[in-house]
């Protein structure tokens, strides 16, 4: 065997090893666990059951699923509404400062997301920066009750997930041929038409990747509803977390995780089916 081949053999196999160790093995464990029984004193018992999945079909869990989907939907929409023009603005900057600005989008994310969520608390809390400022300039005379509301959860999630929208869109828009916009204008298109018929369709794959990167985390970043929402409106992430840690019901937790994984895989599959290969590269 040639030296090259040995190298190739090793790299390919280390990729397989990695996949098996850190993706397939844990996933298999979760799949198996989700079909096991649970007793109060043991995390799981080696007996097959479908009970965990039946539990998921009870109204209370369906409601959480529905609520998580709704919240994730709005968070994703808001992220796109804010992130899309933001990314576009970034691409319009002179190339000298463009990279720097993109870096500024990332820098806050070198700090732990938990820490930044606490920072949001200090901003929106009863006597926090925002309220103090608004009272000072006379917009309000009573502090806004933002903290521990759904609004706070949405603020926290949007803030945390915004870079995952801005960055793929930014790289996608960077590749957008400026002459196509000129061409559209030349053919008589006004601003909105150019945006809707040219820019939007051509950045579609960036939007898809942005959705991929925000939708699932929006349902599973459990500490944000805990910290900012007052731990009362439980999302899927919270339920999974408590099933594993507090309720010690690993089988149910596994079933929940798996269902979420399947739903997301279906979304991915749908994405891959609806997008031709050439437009997929941004992901």
């Amino acid at each position, binding site marked *: 065997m040639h030296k090259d081949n040995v190298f190739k053999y090793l790299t390919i196999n280390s990729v397989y090893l990695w996949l098996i160790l850190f993706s397939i093995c844990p996933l298999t*464990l979760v799949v198996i666990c989700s079909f096991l029984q649970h007793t109060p*004193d*043991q*995390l799981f018992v080696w007996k097959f059951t479908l009970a965990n999945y039946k539990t998921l079909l009870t109204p209370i869990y369906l409601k959480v699923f529905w609520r998580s989907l709704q919240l994730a939907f709005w968070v994703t929409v808001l992220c796109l509404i804010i992130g899309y023009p933001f990314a576009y603005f970034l691409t319009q900057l002179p190339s000298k400062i463009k990279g720097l600005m993109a870096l500024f989008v990332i820098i806050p994310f070198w700090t732990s997301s938990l820490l930044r969520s606490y920072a949001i608390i200090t901003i929106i809390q009863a006597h926090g920066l925002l309220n103090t400022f608004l009272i000072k300039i006379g917009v309000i005379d009573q502090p806004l009750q933002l903290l521990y509301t759904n609004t706070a959860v949405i603020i926290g999630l949007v803030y945390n997930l915004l870079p995952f929208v801005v960055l793929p869109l930014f790289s996608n828009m960077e590749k957008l041929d400026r002459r196509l916009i000129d061409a559209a204008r030349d053919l008589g298109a006004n601003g909105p038409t150019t945006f809707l018929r040219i820019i939007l369709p051509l950045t579609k794959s960036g939007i898809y990747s942005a959705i991929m990167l925000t939708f699932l985390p929006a349902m599973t970043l459990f500490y944000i509803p805990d910290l900012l929402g*007052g731990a009362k409106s439980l999302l899927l992430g*919270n339920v999974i977390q408590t099933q594993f*840690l507090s*309720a*010690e019901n690993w089988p149910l937790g596994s079933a929940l995780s798996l269902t979420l994984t399947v739903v997301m895989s279906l979304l991915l599959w749908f994405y891959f089916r609806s997008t031709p290969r050439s437009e997929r590269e941004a992901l």
Partner: protein
Amino acid sequence: MKRILLAFLLIFSASVFAKQHEILNIYNWGGFLPDTVADEFTKETGIKVRYSTYMSDQDLYAKLAIAYNNSGYDVIFPSVEFLGRMERAGMLEKIDKTKIPNFKNLDPHFVDQAFDPQNNYSVPYLWGSTGLVINRKYYPHLKFDRWHDLWDPVLKDKLLLMDDPRTNFDIALHLLGYSINTQDPKQIKQAYEKLRTLLPNIKLFNMIAPQSIYTNENAVIGVGYSGDTYAAILSNPGLEFIYPNDGVFLWMNSMAIPKNAPNRDNAYKFINFILRPDIAAQIATTLRYSTPNLAAKKLLPKEQRDSRVLYPNAVDLKNSQFETDIGGANELYEQYWQELKMTT
């Protein structure tokens, strides 16, 4: 998966290093032992302290369970209501009190309680009570001295409750006239229904930082633990801690030795060290929780010793009771608790 790996790592590291130094592996709640105390212990005994923390009794239980009682820890700090469960799961070492001469310093009120009748498995560490908290700046005249007052419709979307099933079920069960340690599914279900009627008044559940939430007035009324609230009052004098006149719930954390603790002798040395009056006083002063150590209480700063929040009088405690083990019903509590939070 992560946990199992972690447990393996712990076992591995514990066995590797144990041979080199005298060592003590402590597994405690976060922020529940002043660093100075651990340092002093090492200085006096030469035993190196390795300290890890957890966030809930469930974490502790899970970690011991997945390590099949070979977690490598020497001293743990379970809440007393978890003792029964852990003991049944064979997680706890029986304690030889002859190796803890300072045990005598403990207040008799806190030993030989229902959760561990002869203190065979646990040594009291710190205790506290669950009561009502109100910021009088916002509610100068509100009548707020019974658990039932939490249901007052004027408190819509206002209450801070503890993010913990037992603390909340205690309130509902007690109001329904049942034991707070009931294992009767019907009673637990009724308590759940009762708590559901409280949902409109709840602003948030929190257990990590109720002290700062009350201090910063992000919530101004609700339920609190005595220690946290004592600290909060120091920075926000508008706050008040009230022992509800229809019943007070006490909680206590204990020290215990897990089965197969690798450094059992060091564990005894440590527990005895903690029970020394000066050390116990140092802990209580720093952490601002109540100490069950009578000898230590005398050494506390006056304002702590005289605080009714930390050390309630006999009248305050006339209806008081400890949470104890609820056996297999724990599952049911947890399930209703999840449903409760999912419904909000």
